[in-house]
């Protein structure tokens, strides 16, 4: 009789967020946790020292951003739509219209629930205006 291994995936807070015998599911969950961790690193790296947000809340925020990646992604690209409506889209504004990648199992800290938040964001970062210059 075959013995199935059980995989446990730990969230950013060290708690088990998924226990499964399906290695694919475990790997997906690991990817989501890793993405949450990357967002957490970005947030921690950019906040001023006196931000006053607890670690637990920072983790929740990072997980939330991953869970709501579609909405957050849309907001980060929001001006592309506005420009199109006004008929003044610039080459640099065109960030592409979607990879069309659907991943119903991605939702941040809780890989077991299915939010079905297909990405569809695409990149195609335009060749015109370089928005990285914001940061200069």
């Amino acid at each position, binding site marked *: 009789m075959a013995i199935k291994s059980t995989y446990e995936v730990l969230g950013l807070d060290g708690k088990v967020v998924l226990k499964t015998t399906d290695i694919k599911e475990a790997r*997906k969950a690991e990817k*989501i946790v890793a993405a949450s961790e*990357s967002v957490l690193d970005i947030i921690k790296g950019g906040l001023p020292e006196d931000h006053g947000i607890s670690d637990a*809340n920072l983790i929740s*925020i990072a997980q*939330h951003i991953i869970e709501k990646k579609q909405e957050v992604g849309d*907001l980060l690209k929001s001006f592309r739509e506005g420009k199109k409506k006004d008929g003044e889209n610039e080459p640099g504004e065109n960030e592409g219209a979607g990879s069309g990648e659907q991943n119903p199992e991605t939702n941040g800290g809780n890989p077991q629930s299915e939010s079905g938040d297909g*990405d569809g964001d695409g990149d195609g970062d335009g060749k015109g205006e370089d928005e990285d210059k914001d940061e200069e």
Partner: protein
Amino acid sequence: MDPKKARLEEKRMERVYLLSDYLLESLADSGVKLSEAQAEAVAETIVNSRKETIAIFKKI
């Protein structure tokens, strides 16, 4: 300020405010209480790392 830079800065700030408002609203339901300034600081960080953040989203 160079008009192009000014326009980019305006756009960046608009994104910060939009994301900040969104975070405040959506996080309220998940029990994370942030002040407006804290939400704005988080939003600003994400907007400043916009490309990295979008790249992370694409990996999942």
